[in-house]
C-alpha cells in the first residue's frame, strides 16, 4: 500500500505571482491493508495543518469555505458521506467560523461490490479542496491516491493508521439515546432544551451548538447555558439575517462539557442534534 500526494496549488492567483506554499498536507489512508468484496471498510482523507492554520467544517460559519472531497473510485465501489468530526470554533472580530486545526481525519465508509475483481489492486483517488487560513486565507487543492489489494481474505488492520481510525470514530458526534432535545423560537432567540433520560443527570459546565445549516443562528454570538429543574437550555441568537428559505429543523453537533471534579479533565461529548423547530420565525 502506498499513498501519493500531488499538490496542485490554486490557479486563482495572479499569473505573475509564484504560488505560496501550502500549509496543509493531505493524504488518503485506510484502516485495513486490503478490501474484501461486499464488505464495508473505512478510508479517510487526513489533513495535517501547520500550527496556527485551520480548514473548515461542512458549515464554515461566518467566513471561509467548506472542505470538499470528490471521489474517484472504481465504478463498482460504493462510498458513503464524510463523517465530520466535531469542529472547533474560531472567533474573530465580527466573525466566528467552524473548522479544524492540527490534524483531522475525514472518514467515509467504502464498500467494494460483491463481485469486485480480486485480480489486481484497486486505485482509490480523491480531489480534496479546502481553504486554509491563519491571518490570511489560501486556496488548497490536492489529488490523493491509495492503492489497495482486493482480496477474499479477512482484511488486516493497518499498523500505522488503525488506532487513529478507532480514536477518531469514537469521538465522532454520536446519535444519542441518553439526551433528548427540543428546539423552539422565542422572539429572536433559538432555545435548545437539553434533557437527560436518567434521573442521574450529569452536571455540565458548558455546551456549544454547531449548526449544519448556515444562516440559522448568529455564529458570532455567545451561547448561554442555563439550568433548571427541567434540564438545561442553550440560548442561541437567531441570525440577524433570516435565511432565504425558512429553516424548520435544527441540525448540527452539540458538544457537551461535563463539569469536572478537582483533578479530573473529562472529555467533551459530541452528539448529533436533529429536531424540528417549533414556531417558524
Amino acid at each position, binding site marked *: 500500500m502506498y499513498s501519493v500526494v500531488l499538490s496542485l496549488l490554486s490557479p486563482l492567483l495572479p499569473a505573475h505571482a509564484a504560488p505560496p506554499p501550502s500549509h496543509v498536507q493531505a493524504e488518503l489512508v485506510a484502516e485495513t491493508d486490503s478490501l474484501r468484496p461486499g464488505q464495508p471498510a473505512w478510508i479517510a482523507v487526513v489533513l495535517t495543518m501547520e500550527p496556527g492554520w485551520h480548514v473548515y467544517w461542512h458549515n464554515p460559519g461566518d467566513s471561509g469555505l467548506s472542505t470538499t472531497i470528490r471521489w474517484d473510485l472504481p465504478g463498482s465501489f460504493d462510498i458513503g458521506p464524510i463523517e465530520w468530526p466535531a469542529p472547533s470554533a474560531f472567533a474573530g472580530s465580527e466573525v466566528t467560523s467552524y473548522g479544524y486545526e492540527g490534524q483531522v481525519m475525514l472518514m467515509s465508509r467504502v464498500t467494494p461490490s460483491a463481485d469486485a475483481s480480486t485480480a489486481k489492486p484497486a486505485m482509490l483517488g480523491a480531489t480534496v479542496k479546502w481553504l486554509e487560513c491563519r491571518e490570511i486565507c489560501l486556496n488548497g487543492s490536492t489529488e490523493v491516491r491509495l492503492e489497495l489489494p482486493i482480496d477474499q481474505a479477512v482484511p488486516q488492520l493497518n499498523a500505522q493508521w488503525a488506532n487513529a481510525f478507532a480514536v477518531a470514530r469514537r469521538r465522532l458526534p454520536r446519535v444519542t439515546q441518553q439526551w433528548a432535545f427540543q428546539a423552539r423560537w422565542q422572539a429572536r432567540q433559538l432555545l435548545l432544551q437539553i434533557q437527560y433520560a436518567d434521573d442521574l443527570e450529569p452536571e455540565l459546565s458548558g455546551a456549544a451548538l454547531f449548526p449544519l445549516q448556515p444562516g440559522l443562528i448568529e455564529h458570532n454570538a455567545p451561547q448561554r447555558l442555563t*439550568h433548571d429543574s427541567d434540564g438545561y437550555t442553550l440560548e442561541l441568537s437567531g441570525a440577524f439575517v433570516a435565511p432565504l428559505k425558512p429553516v424548520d429543523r435544527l441540525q448540527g453537533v452539540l458538544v457537551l462539557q461535563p463539569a469536572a471534579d478537582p483533578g479530573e479533565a473529562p472529555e467533551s461529548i459530541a452528539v448529533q442534534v436533529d429536531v424540528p423547530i417549533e414556531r417558524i420565525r
Partner: protein
Amino acid sequence: MRRMSMVGWAAVMVLALARPAVAAEVGEPAPDFTLQDVTGHARTLSEFRGKIVVLEWVNPECPFVKKHYDSDNMQRLQQTAAAQGIVWLSINSSAIGKQGHLSPELGGEFLTARGASPAALLLDSDGAVGHLYSAKTTPHLFVINPQGVLVYAGAIDSIPSTDAGDVSKAVNYVQLAINDVLAGRPVETVATQSYGCSVKY
C-alpha cells in the same frame, strides 16, 4: 410554570444586556460615516444623499475578492453603477499590519492594477465603519437607496466559492437590489448571509 435558578436568571439578564446593538439594519437609515479616500479627501456618506450608494468591503489578498476581480465581475459592476449615477464606495477595513491593509499609495495602485473604478476607495484601518456596519467578510455588500435607507446587506451573489467560473452562474444580489430601486420597486431580496474571508480588523 418552570422556575429558573437564580444563576439561570442572572445568566439570561447578562445575555440580554451583553448582546451588542447592530447599528446598520436593513430597512433603517444607513449609519453615516466619514472616511479618507486614497487621494486624501474626506468623504461622508450623507454627501451622496439623493443617489443610490453601494458599499463594497474589499481586501485585495482575499481569494473570494480575487474571484470577483479576476473575473472582472466587480469592475463591470462598478462601471455599470457609474453609468447609472450610482455611487460605488469600496471600503478597506484591514488593520495596519493585517492582510490586505491599504495605504493611500497601495490603494491607488490596487485600483490601477485592477482597472477598478469605484467613486472612491475609502480607508478604514481602525475598523470603525466596518464595525458600524457589522462587516464580516470581504466581500460584504450594502446597498443604500437615495433616501439614505439601507435596502440590501449581504453576499455579492448566490454562490459562496472562490471559483471565478461561478460568477456567471450565480444570482447577483447587488445588481438585483439596484434594479429594484431604479424601478421604484421594494427590494425583493433584502439580506443574505455574506461569504468571504473574515475582515482583518
